[in-house]
């Protein structure tokens, strides 16, 4: 029998459950633009379509500093404080 040492971080992933679905969208929906070139074109289009479908809902766009890094704590906090829903609107 050969014995080897585990090269991984050995951590057990945290199991997260999905947040409860309210059944109806109200309040504010955040769209997170990761700040890729021309990403704003799609975000603006998405915002317009959401406004058409959900006229009573406010849609706000947020933007990361750079697509090369995770969203800053500040942006995350702002989204959390100001929004009821969030759509990470664009990756690549």
């Amino acid at each position, binding site marked *: *029998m*050969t*014995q*080897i*040492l*585990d*090269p*991984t*971080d*050995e*951590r057990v992933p945290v199991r997260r459950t999905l947040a409860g679905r309210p059944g109806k969208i109200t309040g504010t929906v955040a769209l997170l633009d990761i700040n890729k*070139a*021309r990403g704003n074109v799609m975000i603006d289009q998405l915002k317009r379509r959401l406004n058409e479908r959900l006229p009573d809902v406010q849609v706000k766009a947020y933007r990361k*500093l*750079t*697509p*090369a*890094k*995770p969203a800053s704590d500040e942006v995350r906090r702002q989204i959390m404080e100001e929004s009821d829903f969030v759509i990470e609107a664009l990756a*690549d």
Partner: protein
Amino acid sequence: MANGISLPAFSLDDAQGKARSFPGKRPALLCFVKEDCPTCGLSMPLIESAHRAFGRAVDVLAIGQDRAGNDALVKRHGLTAAMLDDSALKVSFNYDIEIVPTIILADADGRELRRFIGFGRSDWRELWEELERIAKVRPPAIDWSSYPESRPGCGSKSVEPGIADRLIAESEGNPLRARRIEIADQDDVFEFMFDQGLTDGLPVVPPTPERVIRMLRGTRRDAQEIVGTCAPNYAPVTIEKIAINAVMAGCKPEYLPVVIAATEVICTPEYNIHGITATTYGATPILVVNGPIRHKIGMNMGINVFGQGNRPNATIGRAVKLIVRNVGGGRPGEVERAAFGSTSKFTCCFPEFEEKSPWEPLHVERGFNANESVVTCFGLEGGPRQIADQTSRTARSVVGSIGLGVEASWHPNAHNFGDILLVISPEHVDTIWHDRWSKEDIRRRIQEITARPLRDLLPNEDYAGIGALPDQANQRQRSEAELNKKIPKFQSTKNIHIVVAGGPAGKWSAMFGGWASGIYGSVPTSRKIEEMP
């Protein structure tokens, strides 16, 4: 030597399979021996004589280091003293036996009274006198003149390479804490590691406990010290985990300090291994090593410097990438999203050929002393891409060519750009240094030859390049002065990082093209390598 320390207790089987424990109820003479040691052979008659003379009062225990050899010693010397089987070498290891024979006299409570190694006639005579006092007997005299004055001993089996590492790994005080995975004999360990997703697609060296113990000899740092957290999972990275992955990559222990220093860099927020791993562009860690360690570990800085064939070049970069994969959790198809990637994603590490450079080496430019060993990590596109110029005879001309070549980084029209790593070959260095150009001259010339009017950089119906459609890029009215303003390729000359490397022949230089830099991407970061003496 009599230090009175309590010796470790043990129980070993004698030749008849009967367990003998130490300490017993009487004083004991412990004699560590191995069969193929001539000095042990010289000592065996005295060990047997001690048993015959003092055996009524003292337990005389020969402790042999291999089973077949023990039997041979018993037969050869007509041994009636107990021969205990320490073929597992656990007792030899616990007693820190480095040389055999080692002779230890202990009292009835297991405290050490006397110890010597090898063969010393005076040592044995003094021991004999002490045994006479303890046993209160006067045995027949020994003809001491028939023995040599002294003979050196032999190395204990417990300190032989490989065996010592296994014994440390199995000992209670071993520094390893990683989970141990047992692979059944009927399984192929190499296939197992592929199946578990632990490799980069090439076979890895199985990180057995003894190999990891050996790797850890490459550093003085505590195995459980955390050097940082590695994205994308932000997992803590210990020296032990670095050593495990360094074993897998094929590193030797003397490379470990370089791997540790590079890992410290990749765990910094400035370096941003998260983005380097996740980008679709295919950035990867590019490691440049400077200072004396290049020679000490035998790195290749000459012919085929970026290619195959040199162990430290190949394995140090590979170890870092395995750490990102296995500890950080950056795996292709998961968080690692490169559209193409490159072979540099397996490994990319090379030393600067400082001896071929007339300029300050990279690490000195970055604030370190020339005699310090340093690794500098870039987060750039793999490669490198080569730039040919076989005809220029002046510095201005050859650097002009290099400038035109590096303009293609990302996109020729992407100006005001971030970092690039330029590797100048010895032949190009000769041409440039013939005119005594400094690195700063090179940087200025690159900025000069790449500077283009904004109007030439704006996209049109024939090409894009700066991330906007022509109508958007041109929608704002710009003055003639704005349109005529020349914009160089790089934000600053500081973004042009220059090293020398490569074989003696070849009028080409090379570049590792840029990815997002500065606060928007990755900041090239250096770390001093903590070398072992």
